[in-house]
Structures are given as C-alpha cells and as structure tokens.
C-alpha cells in the first residue's frame, strides 16, 4: 500500500483498512471579541491510506480549517482528530503541507527552497539533495534550480512548493487550494502531474479546492461541504480508474455524472434557505 515503509515504521502498524486520518464529530469555532464564527460543525471523515480525497465547497466553508485541523495548526473546539492513529494535539511534522500561495522564501533559489524542508528537519544532507534533484526532474523544473521565486511563473512556483512538501517522503500530503491561482491550462497540466505523482509515490493526499473539474478529476472520493457553518453534505465516489488521462477522463460518463452531481450540490448549497 504505502511505498514509504521507513517513515511508517515509527507510526505503528496500520492495516490497509485502518484510516490514516480520522476526524470524528469535530466542531471548530473561532471567537473574537465581537463575534463567534462556526467554521466546522460536526464533521466526521476517515481517510484510508493511499487515498486521494478532494474536499470541495464554496469559499469560506471551512475547507482550509479542516486541513489545518489535521495538520495540528488549528485546535478542534469539540471532537477528535487522529493522524496515524494518534490524537492530534499540536503541529504535526509527519506530513507534507502545500499552501494556497506557494509560501516560498523569496531569497532562495528553487533547489534551496526545496531543501528548506531538509534543513528544518535535520535530514541527511546528501540524501536530501539527491531526493530534491529527483523531484526537480519529476516536476520538470530542471534548468531552473537556481532561479528565484519571482523569476518563476505561478505554475512553477507551485511545483517548487509541491517538491518541498514531498521532499521528506511524507505518507500524508495536505494541499490547500494549491492550484487556485493558476490559469486554466496550467491548472490542467498540474492536475495531470498531480495524478501521476500520487500514483508513483503512493502518498495519501487530501486536497482542498473549489473547482468542480479538479475535485472530480483528482479525487478517489470527493467530500462536498456546505457553506458556513461547514458540514459534510455528501461524499461522492465516481469509481474512475486510478490512472487518468485528462481528456478521456473528462469525456468519461462517470466523470460527467459526478461533476454534474457536485455542481448540483454546490449550487443547491448556494441557494438561499
């Protein structure tokens, strides 16, 4: 199931059926002096190892909060979050996290930005460098190793962020609308690449998006959320093959059905109550 057995050893045995991420009855409230915002309400979700789960919903429905909850960056007000079977109480380091904006260090070139991950974790320098070079090749960044972020296009910046998130071979990759700022064509390319990387690495991925095609194309399961307070409305499982060519997949009736259903659900949740 998971190719990266080394990292898994520390986290205990996880039979294929056991969820790798488990969110149970989580409610998340943010209170400021004036108001109280309920970002998530009674959300439960289990992600199995090797799955690619996409979370779709309108803006401000708490999708990002859900990811940050799993990463331990935001505490749950009520309920329980577990990662690798252990309760999440603080920032988790056995994950890869990719942000909406690429969050690159402006003063570092591509390669050194990717290697930040290794420096922060105190990974073996030589091995990290080899891995970085492989990832640079895998994502087509060869030739840009020394380029500074402001010299790169948005798509390339996101590729760098992706490489950085994958450098330490995390078993779980959390992505917060990573391709939201890209133009439609670049986004399709990134989606195709993302599908390939997922298949090649066997990483468990949770990706938040508000794009219907992206959610359906990438996800083995699609979690649909309602506007604030965020609740899970439905979980779609179109049953598409793991290997997906962009064009043929979009023409697949299962894709069309799932996309139509997702659009319906999102549209319905937009309607005034």
């Amino acid at each position, binding site marked *: 199931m998971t190719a990266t057995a080394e990292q898994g050893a520390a986290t205990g045995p996880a039979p294929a059926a056991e969820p790798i991420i488990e969110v149970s009855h989580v409610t998340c409230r943010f209170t400021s002096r004036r108001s109280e915002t309920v970002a998530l309400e009674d959300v439960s979700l289990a992600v199995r190892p090797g799955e690619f789960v996409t979370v779709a919903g309108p803006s401000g429905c708490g999708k990002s909060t859900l990811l*940050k909850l799993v*990463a*331990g*960056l935001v505490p749950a007000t009520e309920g329980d979050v577990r990662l690798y079977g252990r309760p999440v109480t603080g*920032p*988790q*380091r056995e*994950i*890869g*996290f990719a*942000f*909406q*904006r690429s*969050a690159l*260090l*402006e*003063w570092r070139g591509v390669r050194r930005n990717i290697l*930040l*991950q290794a*420096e*922060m*974790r105190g990974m073996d320098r030589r091995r990290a460098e080899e891995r970085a070079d492989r990832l640079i090749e895998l994502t087509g960044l060869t030739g*840009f190793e020394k*380029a*500074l972020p*402001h*010299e*790169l*296009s948005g798509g*390339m910046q996101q590729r760098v962020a992706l490489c950085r998130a994958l450098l330490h071979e995390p078993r779980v990759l959390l992505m917060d609308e990573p391709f939201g700022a890209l133009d439609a064509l670049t986004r399709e390319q990134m989606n195709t690449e993302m599908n390939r990387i997922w298949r090649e690495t066997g990483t468990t991925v949770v990706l938040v998006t508000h794009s219907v095609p992206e959610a359906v194309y990438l996800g083995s399961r699609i979690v649909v959320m309602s506007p604030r307070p965020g609740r899970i409305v439905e979980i779609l499982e179109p049953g598409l093959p793991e290997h997906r060519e962009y064009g043929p997949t979009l023409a697949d009736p299962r894709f069309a059905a799932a996309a139509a259903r997702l659009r319906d659900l999102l549209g319905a949740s937009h309607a005034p109550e």
Partner: protein
Amino acid sequence: MVTSREARPTAVALLAEGWRPVAVLLALFAVWWFVAWRELVPAYLVPSPGAVAETMAADWAMLLEHTWVTTLETIVGFALAAVIGVAAAVLLVYSRTAERSLYPLILFAQVIPKIAIAPILVVWFGFGMTPKIVLAVLIAFFPVVVSAVAGLRSVDPELLELSATMGASRWKTFRKIRFPGALPQLVSGLKVAVTLAVVGAVVGEFVGADRGLGYVLLLASGNLDAPLLFADLLLMSLIGVVLFVLVEVLERLLVPWHASRRTGLALATV
C-alpha cells in the same frame, strides 16, 4: 515561462540615469562660484570655491585628523545602534510583555529632543569620544528598531505554519525564515540611521569637544573663517555620503534578491 532578470546598472546605464543630479550639482556650484566671483555677497559670508579649496589644501593634515575623529564616532555609534536596535526589535517581536511595556516608551522617547540631551551627556561622560558616541546611538537607534520590528512582523503567517509542520525550532525559524525576510526593511532603516549617526556625532562635538569636525566648525565660526567653515561642512557631508554608500553596498551583499527586483540607481532608493 521565466521572466527576464532586470538589467543590472552598467556604467552606461549609470551615466544615462545619473547625469541629472550631477548636472544640478554642477549648476549649484556654478551659482556659488558666480556669487563669489561677482562679490554679490561679501567674501566673509560666502567664500569663493577657490578659497575653500586653498584652505583644504593648506590645512589638509589638520582637517583629516578631525574628519577621522568624527568618522570614528559616527561608525561606532551607528554600529552600536544597529546591534542594540536589532536586539531590542527581536525582544519586542517575540515577547508580548516586552512589546506592551517597552514599545510605547520607545516611541515616546522619540519625542524627547535628543540634541537637548547632549549637555547632560557631557556632564556624565566628559569631553572624550563617549558622549558623542552615546548621542549618535540615541539618535540612530530609533529608525533601526522601527524598521526591524516592521520587518520581523511582516513575515508571511503561512511561512510560520509551514515551519511548524516541519517541526522546526524557534531559533531555526528565526534564522532561516524570519530574520532573512526582515532584512530588506531593516537595511532601509540602517540607511536612515547612518545619516542620523553623523548628526549625533557632530552635535555631540558642538557641545563640548577638543577634536572633531564639529569642534573645528565652532572654532572657524568664532574666527569668522568662512573658507574653513565651508571646507568643514563639505567634509561632514562627505562622511555622510560615503557611509550611506557603504550601507548601500552592504544591502547589495545581504539582500541581492531584493535589490535585483528594483530598477534604477542604487542611490535612488532612499
């Protein structure tokens, strides 16, 4: 896919960009020369450029010595202000308590006319270099603190979250993310600070000194020695300009990634 790097200012570009201020400077110089030559103003008020040059040539050994004293006071004062200012900024940014109790006081202290403190400093520290350096520190400290605090606070919160998911220590986060990210703003604060440090040193010398350009200025003023006054003033300005350019060079070394994004002349960034 990749946008081209901004063209570096070559000698040609420098000439193309830099001729305007030089032309204005030459024009001002011509006016000065004309005024002195036609004796529109008596020579004891505005000496001719020639007379100033003669004074400089005749008294160069004396002037050099005093210039060195003022330069040294300025550099030491500036360096101390930079170190203390950055340290204070780190404390203010990392400690809520320090921020609440100290930052308002630092801002308030800026209201005190520090030049008025100079006589007290002379009483405390005597006539040596110390009161001049202290005054330079007091004046130059403020822009350093303010720019460093702003720089350290400007960090992208997502970078801090990223750092948390990497399990990085606070020190590593500071060293690899926060501090380098604060450098562009810090350096612009240092540029202001270095010119203020010159003011601090000179004012310190006004109040009580037996050496330095400020002392020479008072002496020349007492003797109504206009050429010496003007020569002295030119040297003071020269100290400021040279130190400012040195900080610019430092900026190019420390934050080349930031400098490379800007266009135009190095000096055009104040």
